[in-house]
């Protein structure tokens, strides 16, 4: 078994459980309990593709990110690396916000509007928008709004939306940007991904190659135990968790603001994957992935198969 575990995280409050793992050295603790001496190396990436390359080149053990990248790499590596999800760690909604007062539903967008989202077509936001478009405009209309979407990173998207100086009138984004924007009186919410999918869905997961998984059963076990402890901690003492997060990330949010985000009812902290199959089916139907999982269990390793995923 490995004695250094390399885990990648990204930015944002949704990675709170991973931040707690790092700050409180929970993995090391649980590994020790299993008789392993593991040191953890935490890496940061700004997007999924660098991370995927890192994991495929054997420079990374656990990657973390949205459902879209997970499904993509799962689909692509079935014949070789067999990358699968280790676990999810949250379920959070995505909001489509706009400054255009005329837009009440996504049907109201016109050619003059531009919707910023992290990556046209491939990001989870883009996929969610397509699902919503298909619901709103009918079958085969999934791409209806694609022509007014535009790729911008979260911060750039927020700046573009709020500056009011560009043609960007809507932004499909996640916490904390989504909440931050809604604090501005000009901004209102048009779409909530929970509504689109009919309930809470997983936002972030972790994944690894089958080779790593099979060679390191104890590490996986320790990791999952540590993650459970972190999530329990968040639920038990969100204020403290928020404080740790703000300090570790040098966030400009106050601990109170962060705690408010953490405890919002729609933001769930859980290992259970949710609505994975819905995304997978849709992505399969648009051709974005070439394999179709029969169940969410195809996408995740057996360690969490006991959970009530979907």
């Amino acid at each position: 078994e490995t004695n250094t575990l390399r885990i990648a995280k990204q930015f944002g409050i949704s990675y709170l459980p991973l931040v707690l793992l790092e700050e409180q050295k929970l993995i090391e603790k649980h590994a020790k309990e299993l008789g392993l001496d593991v040191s953890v190396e935490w890496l940061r990436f700004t997007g999924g593709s660098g991370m995927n390359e890192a994991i495929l080149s054997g420079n990374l053990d656990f990657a973390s990110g949205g459902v879209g990248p997970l499904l993509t790499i799962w689909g692509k590596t079935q014949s070789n690396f067999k990358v699968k999800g280790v676990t999810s760690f949250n379920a959070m909604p995505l909001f489509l916000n706009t400054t255009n007062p005329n837009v009440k539903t996504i049907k109201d967008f016109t050619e003059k509007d531009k919707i910023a989202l992290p990556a046209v077509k491939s990001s989870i936001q883009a996929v969610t928008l397509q699902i919503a478009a298909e619901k709103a405009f009918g079958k085969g209309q999934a791409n209806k709004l694609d022509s007014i979407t535009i790729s911008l990173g979260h911060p750039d998207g927020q700046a573009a939306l709020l500056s009011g100086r560009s043609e960007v009138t809507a932004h499909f984004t996640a916490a904390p940007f989504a909440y931050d924007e809604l604090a501005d009186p000009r901004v209102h919410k048009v779409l909530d991904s929970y509504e689109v999918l009919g309930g809470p869905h997983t936002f972030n997961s972790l994944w690894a190659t089958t080779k790593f998984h099979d060679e390191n059963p104890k590490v996986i076990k320790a990791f999952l135990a540590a993650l459970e402890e972190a999530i329990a901690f968040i639920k038990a003492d969100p204020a403290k968790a928020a404080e740790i997060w703000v300090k570790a990330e040098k966030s400009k949010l106050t601990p109170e603001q962060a705690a408010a985000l953490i405890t919002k009812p729609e933001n769930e902290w859980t290992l259970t994957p949710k609505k994975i199959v819905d995304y997978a089916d849709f992505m399969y139907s648009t051709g974005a992935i070439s394999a179709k999982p029969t169940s969410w269990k195809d996408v995740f390793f057996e360690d969490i198969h006991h959970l009530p995923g979907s």
Partner: protein
Amino acid sequence: MPETLADAARRQDVFFETQSAEAIGPIEKRVSFASRAWGNGAFRKTLILIALAVVWELYARHLNNDLLFPTFIQTLTAFFNEMADGTLPRRVWVSLKVLLTGYGIGILIAAFITVLALVTRIGEDLLETLTAMFNPLPAIALLPLALIWFGLGAQSIVFVLVHSVLWPVALNANSGFKSVSPTLRMVGRNYGLGLLATVRQILIPAALPSLITGLKVGWAFAWRTLIAAELVFGVSSGSGGLGWFIFENKNQLEIANVFAGLFTVILIGLAVEGLIFRTLEERTVRRWGMQS
């Protein structure tokens, strides 16, 4: 000066009839076929390219990880597929339009600043200061200003391209102009040439080696920037160029397509070097004996 060598005195004066130039005619050295083939640049370069392709293929097979580094043949297949279904040509066309616009504007502004730097001392200071300040700034630094001035889309990318072309071209042009032989400058001034005539008729030809280098570097960095910029700056769906093609395929782990995109960049690079820059050099600096 007295002649002191004994034998020298004994040498006799000798006289010869010479032949007229016409009588002599051309004399040419014979060259073997092998050395003639080897003397052909295109032949040597083709060899190099084949060698590189073979190395690529072998190394990629050895790695056997086509999600990371596909083989040359996989790349070529992807390339032809994407060419055949029209995707790549369309993307290349989108990129090329933006690229050439940015490149052209960048060169024009570089020309303007460099000429300014020629005329006034403050212009030169301005060029030096601005270059030192802005040249190291990455494209993302320009994003806010680009958003304010041009909004999203092609115009902003052009703006970023200008930024990447302008400074290296201006630096090379300025250094080239400053290295022009003082005698040639005086010749130009002697004829009472105006500023633009001096630039056109003296400085540009005299500094051509530096200028061409600047153009080459600018061209390469325009490509690099274009591909990166399409990621940073929004691309509306469907309208993206080669950079977006690469990014999209990367996100979908279609790595062979990613490499097909990069391969296209390489092909364009080779074509531009071989057809444009090379020809330019052959017809100018080499012909004029300014470069060996």
